């Protein structure tokens, strides 16, 4: 499946867990040792707590990605529309995958067809 690849380059420096927000340790749910990339069509954006959720159609298979909570995105100036305006368009998502092997991950970076990209970056000293 060429749209799915393992990437261990720039994002690897950010992996490790504690800086990602979850109501549990991220490593209990996601394989934090390596990131991966999925490209597909954005089909749905759920702006819900405790994590926003995105659905992608990847060659007819549905992938889900959660990310930081809505309150965090709001406070860095990102609204649901920043994602939802891309519904129906191509999107590339980099993230870490669920340990159970399901088509589910935590989004670390999203690149839209417009060329715009949003990426979670660890705060210095955190």
């Amino acid at each position, binding site marked *: 499946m060429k749209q799915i690849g393992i990437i261990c380059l720039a994002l690897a420096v950010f992996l490790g*867990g*504690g*800086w*990602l*927000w*979850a*109501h*549990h*340790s991220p*490593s*209990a*749910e996601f394989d934090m040792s390596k990131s991966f990339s999925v490209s597909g069509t954005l089909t749905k954006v*759920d*702006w*819900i*707590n*405790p*994590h926003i*959720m995105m659905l992608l159609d990847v060659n007819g298979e549905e992938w889900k990605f*959660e990310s*930081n*909570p*809505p*309150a*965090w*995105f*709001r*406070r*860095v*100036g*990102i609204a649901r529309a920043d994602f939802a305006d891309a519904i129906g368009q191509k999107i590339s998502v980099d993230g870490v995958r*669920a*340990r*159970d092997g*399901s088509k*589910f991950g935590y989004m670390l970076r999203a*690149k839209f067809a417009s*060329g*715009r*990209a*949003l*990426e*979670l*970056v*660890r*705060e210095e000293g*955190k």
Partner: protein
Amino acid sequence: MKPRYLRTLLAVAGMAVGAFAQAHPDLSGVWSFTIDLPPTKLKVENDGKADFKVIDRGLAAPRDAVVKGALPFTKEPAYKPEFQAKIKYLFDHESKEDPVFYCGKPGVPRIGPPRKIVQLPKETIFFYEDISGDPYRIIPTDGRAHRKNGNPTSYGDSLGRWENGVFVVDVTNFLEDGWFGEGGYFHSDALHVTERFWRDGANLVWQATVEDPKVLSAPWTMAPKVVKPSTDPLEESPRCIETDSKLLVNDDHHQQR
């Protein structure tokens, strides 16, 4: 009612509220969001140009800094010896046992200081933003007693009074099923919380003391939170749907709030 009479009425009401505000420190206003958020910043790339956005955590001072007017505090509550095993179990299994992790109400004092305060002559109203919903609390300040027939709730029954420039809120009648803090901080129906609010310059300071003689060996005073004023308006919190729990492969967790 003719417009000029209405204007006169509003002016008189405004004077009354203004006179009241002068009698006590004014806590009214919108205050920063203080619930812990991810320690991440956002990198936004447009046409090859990168811009970084960092959240304003709303704390004007680090949590371990000396805060003027604060009571002495400790990091953790002290449970009676017979509850040590229970507190350890809840701490170790926090990601499965904590109601807040599953969209439950944090209650008082876990929810922290309010996002908005409306201070009126006979009552003060707190508004919050929380992933479990957006609660409000109406706190009478007219000297009445606690309700005798109220149902227990997550946010309890609150009464307010002023003590030397400090707004003291006495809270009782809690549901038993909540935690007053991450770390397995369970409580009984005897939970009694005293919140203190005061101004430190432009900032709001909040500090709470937890008493529960059935499970705690002594009252616990938490570290104060210093909250900056905010221009970020309140917004209805999106609904909360927890989906991660079934994917957890172990009990690992980390401190949140």
